[in-house]
């Protein structure tokens, strides 16, 4: 009876593709955009806020999650899959701290999450996770890090990246405009990148900033509006000059 669940769902196609993984990537492409930018002294995560229904409690719809005191995660794709993966990652963070007396390095937890995602492409009776994640944080030596994982289980480090809807456009913008920035400049870069594909306005983006040794700071609507207005003012200034 149990043999019915041993057959893998993710199998190779004749031309070497894993179609289930590619379909999972399609699911990611349908998710709302998430962007991450690494500065010299902080990391900025920006996500496109899906419009919430009138009766829905806005603060319970979160795309940016804390994994531990020093690292966070944003994702694009199936929210439920993200919840499961985030729970596993949180437990792993504490388990590591219990045995090693040290906090996880960002690469370690990325490797763990990517490992879990890969396992689900090579096990019986399960389907891959339909999410790509952006994992950010500070290592013990204070270096800021940004990593991306995808449903295949691959991961790599980035200076700035985007995932989800229109991520290609955002990434191209970042490739054109990325420079080593710090502080507010990094926040503005992340928001400018996000505004390329999202309707302008504080209501449609959520910004979170992670600084070394400090808890994740999620910008409230007023702070987001302030950044957006600053960007628009700069744009207007360059257009008229």
């Amino acid at each position: 009876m149990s043999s019915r669940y041993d057959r893998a769902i993710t199998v190779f196609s004749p031309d070497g593709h894993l179609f289930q993984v590619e379909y999972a990537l399609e699911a990611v492409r349908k998710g709302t955009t998430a962007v991450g930018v690494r500065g010299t002294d902080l990391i900025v995560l920006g996500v496109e806020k899906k419009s919430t229904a009138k009766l829905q409690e806005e603060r319970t719809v979160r795309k940016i999650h804390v994994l531990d005191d020093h690292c966070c995660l944003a994702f694009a794709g199936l929210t439920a899959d993200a919840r499961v993966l985030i729970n596993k990652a949180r437990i792993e963070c504490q388990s590591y701290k219990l045995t090693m007396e040290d906090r996880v390095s960002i690469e370690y937890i990325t490797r763990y999450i990517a490992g879990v995602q890969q396992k689900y492409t090579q096990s019986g009776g399960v389907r891959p996770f339909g999410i790509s994640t952006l994992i950010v944080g500070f290592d013990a030596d204070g270096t800021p890090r940004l990593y991306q994982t995808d449903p295949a289980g691959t991961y790599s480090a980035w200076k700035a990246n985007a995932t989800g809807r229109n991520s290609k456009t955002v990434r191209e913008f970042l490739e054109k405009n990325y420079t080593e920035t710090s502080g507010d400049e990094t926040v503005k870069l992340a928001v400018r990148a996000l505004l390329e594909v999202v309707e302008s306005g504080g209501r449609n983006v959520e910004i979170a900033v992670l600084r070394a040794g400090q808890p994740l700071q999620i910008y409230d609507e007023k702070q987001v509006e302030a950044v957006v207005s600053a960007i628009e003012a700069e744009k207007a200034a360059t257009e008229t000059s």
Partner: protein
Amino acid sequence: KDYVLLIADRKVAYSVVALKSDHDKIMHLDASKLFAIAGEGGDAVQFSEYVQKNLHLYNLKTGLPLSTKAAAHFTRNELATALRKGPFQVNALLGGVDHSGPSLYHLDYLGTLHKVNFGAQGYGGYFCYSILDRLWKPDMSLDEGVALMNTCIKEINSRFLVGGADFTIKVVTAEGIRVLDPVLASSA
């Protein structure tokens, strides 16, 4: 009234040898909870770190700190589950301050849990319970509490065979955890 005061001796014994005389036996479970552990060396550390990390995980998962009562019950549950497999030889006092005020819990390795106004683990109880019974009253200020603790320490150091010990003193209030100056045997 608005705090929980915990004291512990600082000696680590290895049969008849004192291995260390400055060991901190009161662990910070989180910013508002103290865990004073008496028991087998390895078990004490292993178990209290395990509880600490699980409390942290709960905090991250829900964004809320666990109440003292919930933390005490979680700890008790872990002790009770382990009892019939491989028990932790750990007796503890868990004190914390949360939205409902200060509370103190007395736990032992069999999975016993009692909410108490004052408590002791180890030989200290033999000497201090009578003092605490007579002198403890509700809503004591921190100064009164410290004075009461000093009375207990004096008694232990004069009457207990393995006395003359230094003590770690920590207090939890709504503002957090504070370490009070350790009482040295010479000045008590």
